[in-house]
């Protein structure tokens, strides 16, 4: 029941957040829509950064640093025009290889 209640509240709330701006027929101020665009990008960036900083791997010392390096390598590739899939594969593989090497050394 607890799970269902939480899901229903978040689901209906999310539906309202999605629908209300798009169903509004009036002209919104340009500054508002621009600011919303920057805020949207900022939140996506924030989710990514937060996920890396809170990353945990008990088998490796300094896991968040290694995670940050691996993600940075993937993102540099994406910035230079590689596909999302390549960026994700290289970033993930970098983490796996370095963490395995570190585990073997210690």
């Amino acid at each position, binding site marked *: 029941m607890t799970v269902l209640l939480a899901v229903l509240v978040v689901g209906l709330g999310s539906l309202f*957040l999605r629908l209300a701006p798009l169903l509004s027929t009036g002209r919104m101020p340009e500054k508002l829509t621009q600011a919303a665009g920057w805020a949207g990008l900022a939140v996506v960036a924030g989710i990514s950064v937060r996920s890396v900083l809170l990353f945990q791997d008990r088998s490796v010392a300094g896991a968040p640093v290694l995670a940050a390096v691996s993600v940075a390598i993937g993102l540099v590739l994406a910035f230079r025009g590689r596909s999302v899939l390549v960026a994700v594969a290289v970033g993930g593989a970098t983490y796996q290889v370095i963490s395995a090497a570190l585990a073997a050394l210690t």
Partner: protein
Amino acid sequence: MYADLDTAIDGAVDRHETRPALSAGARAMLPILAAYAPLGLLVGAHVASSDNPVAAWLSTWLIYGGAAQLAVLDVLAHGSGWVAAAIVGLLVNMRLAAFATAMHPEWRSAPVRLRVAAALMLTDAPWVVARNRTHGQREERRRYYLGAAISLFVLWPLMVSVGVLVGGRLEAAPVTSLLLPLTLGAVIVPQLRQRPAAVAMVAASCTAALTMHLSAGSALALAGLAGALGGLVTERVP
């Protein structure tokens, strides 16, 4: 008057072939869908381990956002209750209002049924994919967004459902936690070429680092605010 003008422009564009834009949007999502697959399996694993797997599985459609769905299920798994879970989930999904507001100028003149469809399928990846496409007419860009959004809307629940069955094996691999930042980061990183977007993302990243001890919802709301201010201020500077 503006609405009439928009409708007239859209009608003219409609006469041209715009169907390729729909498939182009779906094609643009393909690598992202492949990168999302392990994330979908991970969310599925969280769904399977929930106290109420059926309700958690339904949240794939009802909440429709991996980050919020994971946040809600995590809070519930820690026994914090439905109110705390709902607050965190809504705060994480507040970004949807920002996405929808940013889409408003382009969608204002679209038929209501299309706006409802666009809203129902709105989440991070299709929004950023559509935002990365700066060329083309308004109708073409809308179809491009719909192509991207439909492909994720169809395949994401499938990935989560498969994850319910087999995702438990993935949970043991810590690297799966990096798939979300890698995928989302790779989608938005081309936007760094625009100065206001770069400032917005750097401001948000710094804010996220400084607020990492806060709950996800509060921290992301602050990151969004910092990014919006950073972007707006940078636009004013010549």
